[in-house]
């Protein structure tokens, strides 16, 4: 009857929808067990080792890409260095059938999900907008218009529900993107539909130059969850174990039909926004140094060494593997790109319209007149 009062009883229990006051942590900055694990449970040794390995590979991939962008071999590169734990923890926490919805910054997550490095970098090299097959990897195209991907994730997840399929969508977004209307609509739809979606906000402190304090007056971004009836977690985003455990928990809830989870991971972007950005205009180098001391790889490495799960030999093997990856990326990206101008007209519609066929013919005629090879 009293429609509006329907959930009032829950309101008293509203506290249960609020995140913890301080970020949950499984492994602290020194590699010791975190003293605020909350409901999170430490992943097993295999997972921890793999988290470390993928972070080392991801970091190397990232630094190589940054270098390639500076050399002009990539059109642009938005680094996720410093956010390695979020990137790798999130991607590894997904099951085979789940979908990842990354942004432009999440190349490391895309790579970790299994997309080959070259296909990952197609967008940023500039050969095409998306270099991989989204369906094959269950990775949506890296998304530039901020927050728009959150809605796609909700739609994809809810479609799975409608089809009675067990499939969860993970939407990645930044602190800045939480300000967009689309994020709001996505959280709201997900809440109402109990859609199998995990939202992971990588709060790296800045939206390009704009610090969090100018982005929101909320106590935490995770605190937004209650406004949608969505349980939320505030976690240490430089703790790969915590990210993995939190996303896994979200995936499990979603798969169990319990609906969406909102996770805010506190982290930091160590590099500038992209190679085109000058971060010294808006942040102090002391801030960067401080964050470097909370390096996600170093802390997991310390933990693994302490637990006897990593030694100099395995570390050296891993370093070599990372170098091979970097070498491969370098080689592929230094090779000249071959693009086909005829492809411009190919995928606008399922089949090119008559007008597009005419335009293609015109372009090809023009190119052959110029005696310029079509490639």
């Amino acid at each position, binding site marked *: 009857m009293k429609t509006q009062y329907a959930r009032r009883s829950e309101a008293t229990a509203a506290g249960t929808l609020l995140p913890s006051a301080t970020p949950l942590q499984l492994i602290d900055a020194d590699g010791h067990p975190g003293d605020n694990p909350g409901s999170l449970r430490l992943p097993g040794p295999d997972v921890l080792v793999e988290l470390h390995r993928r972070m080392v590979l991801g970091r190397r991939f990232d630094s190589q890409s940054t270098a390639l962008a500076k050399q002009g071999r990539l059109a642009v590169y938005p680094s996720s260095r410093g956010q390695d734990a979020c990137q790798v923890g999130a991607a590894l926490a997904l099951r085979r059938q789940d979908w990842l919805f990354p942004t432009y910054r999440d190349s490391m997550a895309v790579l970790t999900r299994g997309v080959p490095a070259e296909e990952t970098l197609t967008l940023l090299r500039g050969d095409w907008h998306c270099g991989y097959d989204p369906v094959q990897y269950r990775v949506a195209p890296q998304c530039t218009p901020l927050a728009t991907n959150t809605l796609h994730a909700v739609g994809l997840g809810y479609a799975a529900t409608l089809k009675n399929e067990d499939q969860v969508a993970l939407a990645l977004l930044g602190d800045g993107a939480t300000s967009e209307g689309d994020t709001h609509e996505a959280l709201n*739809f997900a809440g109402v539909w109990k859609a199998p979606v995990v939202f992971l906000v990588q709060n790296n402190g800045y939206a390009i130059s704009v610090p969090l304090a100018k982005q929101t007056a909320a106590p935490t971004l995770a605190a937004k969850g209650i406004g949608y009836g969505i349980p939320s977690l505030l976690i240490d985003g430089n703790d790969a174990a915590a990210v993995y455990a939190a996303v896994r928990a979200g995936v499990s809830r979603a798969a169990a039909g319990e609906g969406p989870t909102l996770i805010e991971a506190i982290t930091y972007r160590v590099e500038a926004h992209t190679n085109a950005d000058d971060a010294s205009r808006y942040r102090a180098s002391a801030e960067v140094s401080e964050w470097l001391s909370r390096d996600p790889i170093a802390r997991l490495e310390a933990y693994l060494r302490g637990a006897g799960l990593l030694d100099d030999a395995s570390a050296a093997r891993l370093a070599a593997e990372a170098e091979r990856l970097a070498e491969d990326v370098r080689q592929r990206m230094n090779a000249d790109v071959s693009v086909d101008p005829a492809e411009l007209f190919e995928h606008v519609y399922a089949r090119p319209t*008559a007008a597009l066929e005419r335009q293609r013919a015109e372009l090809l005629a023009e190119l052959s007149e110029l005696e310029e090879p079509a490639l």
Partner: protein
Amino acid sequence: MTRVMSTDSPDKSAAAAEAKPVTMAAALNQALADSLAADERVVVFGEDVGTLGGVFRVTDGLAGRFGERRVFDTPLAEAGIVGTAIGMAMNGLVPVVEMQFDAFGYPAFEQVTSHLAKLHNRTRGRLALPVVIRVPFGGGIGGVEHHSDSSEAYYTHTPGLRVVTPGTPADAYLLLRQAIACPDPVLFFEPKRRYWSRETVVLSTDGPPIDRAVVRRPGRDVTLIAYGGMVATAMEAASEAVSEGWDVEVIDLRSLSPFDEETVAASVRRTGRAVIVHEAAGFGGYGAEVAARLTERCFHYLEAPILRVTGFDIPYPPPHLERFHLPNTDRILDAIARLQWEDEDRG
């Protein structure tokens, strides 16, 4: 993703059925019902489309018949509706969503232009986006502000989208079935003022393909090009023109994007004169493209510049003033009269 009309048999039996008077709203409702029945991937959602059956009753009864998992109400957020439709399409569904009124589609503009129109292209064809966005458009129903916009030109200028609009109940059925069966995203503009106009027909999927214009009335002297709510107005004008001695050919574009240049240019080459009609503001409107394109293709056949009869370059006016704004038969006849007939011998 290949998608064929999986409805051959019901339609063939329908062809044997008797013609009945049907409104455009009912024809659209039937098209949705038949598509839902024919293809389990089809889902219908939006604001008030479920329990209420839509503010224009186009989705009336569908939630009851197909259940809440196929036809459902959403929270009130248009970007949300289109954005989730995109995600659903990525996961194999065929969403048919409604923007309650034309102007209320604007909040979804980013999702439409940056994603719906582009995802197929961005992914080198790996993702199909068979989404249909139904948009009740245009004026003539005495709606207060923001309820009578004609926004088709925003979408026809956006590569990757198809934009179609029916002028008759029969075509409303056919075009909506085709739009839902189409692998490309389709903006489906429904002329509100014609929702209650009736036609005695057998609804059928037999007919011209989705991207073809049709000649609704053949004529020799001038080509009158219209779409959506203006098709009926153009037909009326053509009838009235007879007494002025003009034999007017009326083309119903159906598909605004892609534009069926072949059909329309052939007509204009025959008649040598053309007038385009639409409700939307003239400046930068869809008619500009039609005029520019036809002029380019038929220049030496033209006896006069192609004229446009459109809404004025003003925000859509309030109910008591809309009759001054909307194209009507007088204005169409007046435009025809201005097509430089002086030297002509027309029998």
